[in-house]
């Protein structure tokens, strides 16, 4: 798979899109972008754009899905047909369902679910344009949507990936780096801290490379966390 033609990091330390190895793509965040949902947010990371929404806490039906001691999260991850170069068939496929599950697991530890026994919280993410990192961007957006919905949380969840392209460990792999690079490790952390709630990987790396990726991605999450705080503050200052 490795494309040896591509110079992933040039002599100036620049990547294919001009970024440094430890640099996130240009990121924009906005909360409260949808009227109907209780909470919502749009996050753009480079050309990747995800809208997330939250409904709840609310009655959960059917009743057998309820938990007596905590709220239950229902999560949907979906890619719009026009969000990829080769049109995607409408509706969540197997990949989307798995991402929905890991995204739910990434967010759960940060949410005070025990405050809402038997209730349901519906989280949904729609990818409207993708260039790598859609699950991470979705998790970052969903966390903002939860905060926007006023759901009590231990902290904001931030997510980004680090990967290896050529022999270089780089932060926030874009679509091209993801497709042709060696490996990609998305992680999520709570409050930009040490608790990691998402980790996936495929590729061919040494333990040292994995450790380097996780450490770099943690720094990326900390950076995203401060941007999330800013986005929420902008809303409450009325600057949206």
């Amino acid at each position: 798979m490795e494309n040896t033609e591509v110079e992933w990091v040039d002599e100036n330390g620049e990547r294919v899109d001009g970024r440094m190895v430890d640099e996130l793509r240009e990121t924009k965040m906005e909360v409260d972008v949808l009227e109907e949902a209780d909470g919502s947010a749009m996050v753009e990371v480079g050309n990747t754009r995800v809208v997330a929404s939250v409904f709840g806490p609310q009655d959960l039906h059917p009743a057998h899905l309820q938990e007596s001691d905590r709220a239950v999260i229902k999560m949907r991850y979906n890619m719009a047909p026009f969000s990829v170069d080769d049109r995607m068939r409408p509706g969540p496929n197997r990949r989307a369902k798995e991402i929905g599950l890991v995204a739910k697991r990434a967010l759960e530890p940060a949410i005070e679910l025990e405050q809402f026994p038997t209730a349901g919280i519906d989280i949904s993410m729609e990818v409207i344009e993708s260039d790598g990192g859609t699950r991470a961007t979705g998790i970052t957006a969903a966390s903002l949507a939860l905060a926007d919905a006023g759901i009590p949380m231990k902290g904001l969840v931030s997510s980004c990936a680090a990967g290896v392209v050529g022999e270089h460990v780089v932060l926030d792999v874009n679509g091209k780096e993801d497709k042709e690079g060696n490996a990609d490790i998305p992680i999520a952390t709570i409050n930009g801290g040490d608790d990691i709630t998402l980790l996936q990987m495929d590729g061919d790396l040494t333990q040292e490379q994995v450790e380097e990726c996780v450490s770099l991605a943690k720094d990326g999450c900390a950076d995203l966390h401060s941007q999330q705080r800013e986005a929420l503050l902008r809303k409450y200052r009325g600057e949206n």
Partner: protein
Amino acid sequence: MKLNTDAIKEMAEEGERLDGRDLNEYREINVEQNYISTTSQGSALVEIGDTKVVVGISFEVESPYSDRPNAGTIVTNAELAPMADREFESGPPQETGVELARVVDRGIRESEAIDLEALCIEEGEKVYTAFIDVHILNNDGNLLDASALGAIAALTDGYVPAYDEENDELNHDEVGMEEIPLTKVPVTATGRKIGSKVLWDTSREEEEALGSRLTVTLTEEDQVVAMQKGGREAMTEEEISQIISGAKNHTSKFRELLEE
């Protein structure tokens, strides 16, 4: 909700609406073309009030239908994302999405707006298929007009990617035709009857009081190219005429938005 429904009907009789608009007045309309710049071949965001719709155009190469071997094809699809509406939580209503897609499709197909023969690559073998994908992000009523406006805005924004004969695939990075071959620009508006009055651009709340509706698609020459009646109640000949006349007014304003 019954209380509101009654209030909406009573107010309509007096020519009034909950949000203070005139019966024939639209909310603010925002059209942003080229909204999905990297992965689609034509796109638009349309907001009418709080209703929010994204439409993206994608092309694929497929075999033509045997009865029209030299014509490209169109596929229109509409997705009501669960985030769009609290009521969609347990899965969006299938019928609504299907009707929405079919009404948008008919306005474009029956007006022969797209020059399908220009989308033929090799007669009987390979033609372009244009996918028009409507994605509803927020529902505050009048999804029909927002979706149809989004579709035509995306089509007029779009291009056709180049066909790479050697690899028998589309090269999305290369332009085959600078513009999607359009012969006309059909635009759609929907009049909705509530009580005995016709209202335009209804909010979701107002639509709960809906009696009937008529969606009208018109060309730039004001030729009627597609219509769809919906709703549980009947409609008279006079009301149909009234709505077609109203649609002429409204669509001419939509055209100005498309030209901006």
